[in-house]
């Protein structure tokens, strides 16, 4: 869970590009048709560092819609759609692991 922007890029499995939406800061995932989706299952999944870098570069050029983009390792379901692999992506997808104050 070292902050991904500080890691060197080493693709060891399926990855996707993720960031936060500019206007709201909500977690978004880069899709195959070059847009952003709030659903992780919509993410374009690749498995080589060349493809990942290419996707990341396209995503970063799109600085008007998403910021803080990076390459995230993901797990995939039976249809090959992305789902969280590690705790960080699980937290980004599902929210904090603790109840918010005032919540029951």
């Amino acid at each position, binding site marked *: 869970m070292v902050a991904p922007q500080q890691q060197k890029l080493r693709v060891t499995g399926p990855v996707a590009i993720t960031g936060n939406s500019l206007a709201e800061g909500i977690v978004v995932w880069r899709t195959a048709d070059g847009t952003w989706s709030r659903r992780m299952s919509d993410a374009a999944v690749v498995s080589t560092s060349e493809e990942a870098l290419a996707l990341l570069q396209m995503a970063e050029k799109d600085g*008007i819609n998403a910021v803080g983009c990076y390459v995230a390792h993901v797990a995939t379901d039976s249809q090959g759609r992305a789902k969280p692999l590690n705790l960080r992506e699980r937290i980004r997808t599902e929210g904090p692991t603790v109840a918010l104050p005032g919540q029951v």
Partner: protein
Amino acid sequence: MYIYDQFDRTFLQQRVAEFSDQVERRLAGQLTEDEFKVLRLMNGVYLQLHAYMLRICIPYGTLSSAQLRMLAHVARTYDRNYGHFTTRQNIQYNWIALKDLPSAMADLATVGIHGIQTSGNCIRNTTTDHRAGAVAGEVDDPRVWAEIIRQWSTNHPEFTYLPRKFKIAVSAAEEDRAAVLVHDIGLRLLDDGNGRAVFRVMVGGGLGRTPFVGKVIRENLAPEHLLSYLEAILRVYNAEGRRDNIYKARIKILVHELGAEEFSRRVEAEWESIRDGYLKLDEVAISDIRSRFRYPDFEALQDAPSELVAALMNPAFARWHENSVGRHKVPGYAIVTLSLKPVGGPPGDATAEQMDAIADLADRYGFGEIRVAHEQNLCLPHVRQKDLPELWRELDAIGVATPNVDFITDIISCPGLDYCALANARSIPLAEALTERFADLDRAKNIGRLHVNISGCINACGHHHIGHIGILGVEKNGQEFYQLTLGGKADENAALGQLLGPAVPYDGVVDVIERVVDTYLDLRQGEDEIFVDAVKRLGVAPFKERAYVAD
């Protein structure tokens, strides 16, 4: 309480207008993220895991009830109904949208609050003891000097693009509760022996990757020279601080690499040319700032009024009174700490409802004044002792009267991986689990004063290096592990904690801490030897021996 006037308000309005324009230009694509990021940081806007985070400045931890109500309003209107109080006397909102910021900041500005310079490579919030102006034994109210520093450092034309962030703290009591020794500049106001107040100046303290205790570079600085001296320090840092590596860019690295003596020589050389210039503080300037601080109209009261004495027959009230109420310098008054560390809850948070209720209580019982402690609790600094029983009932009703201040469950914690993009591990659920293990009040009281500090990464926002027990989250093979240290101290005898042993997986931390605590209880020289003193006496070895052995 500092009273903002039309000039302060105009400045704030201009700041809000400037930032609103910058947000608009960013959303329209006229500013790149690289160009904008620095600007938004200087208004307190971070990007976290789930959303933007807005860090609002609470200058020297002092709030009016109107300001606290506005903090509640922002939580309710633009966020998820709560805020988090930080180790630098600020408040953070975790769910802010960028497009809402101009509106939120305009609202905050109406009561003189802002996020100016709470992030970025500039001079941050100058912090001090949350009991300033209420506790006995202060040479002067440090908040007056913190305000002088605040104004000097706000939108400073030369020091807005420093190599890295810059944090200043001031203390004026014998017991340093502002952790001045672990700040970039630490200032202690002391009596020079002849009844005059002078500053002892320390530089190069700090936590994070390379923690250091600050070095004294000037033993007694006359207050009129405060700003010119700070200017000289900042100027040397701005010109010579490293900019090639963000992990080596703080002033503590420059002081370390040059040596304190050489660093001091350069500061003094710079200072010689400017000490008698326009930054010299004359009496008119100091009096103006001082006059804008309003103090309560204290009544002439006695200590231990009958209402209080009678109420102390109630064991629950007595327990809270002994734990959370401190001596005030004025007879018949008291300093009340409001614990934001409920058992099983996230440390340092308050809901909008709690904030509103506390604002009301401050109006009724505390001259409308609230303080934020860097231990992430709140405080009502001026309460009549005869009002304590009533106040306690009301505090208890809103859940801020847990009698655990300074105890093991009064945990200081960063937000950690649940919120923060920099984190390696979670901190909040660990804090919650610890409070549950040690929930029993008698047990916590028996253990006594014990500061647990948790940081989710090496940036040390939880100040783990100076925790009596420090916990640092690290990542090993995709799992959360925690390094534990013992014996850190944040006060005038500041020290960094020593490593206990190998890092512990998440599931084992609470047990290890329990074994450390049991070791202390077995080996202490009576109840009066608090945990951190026992560690100093015994060293880490006896704790390490028992901490890692499973029952």
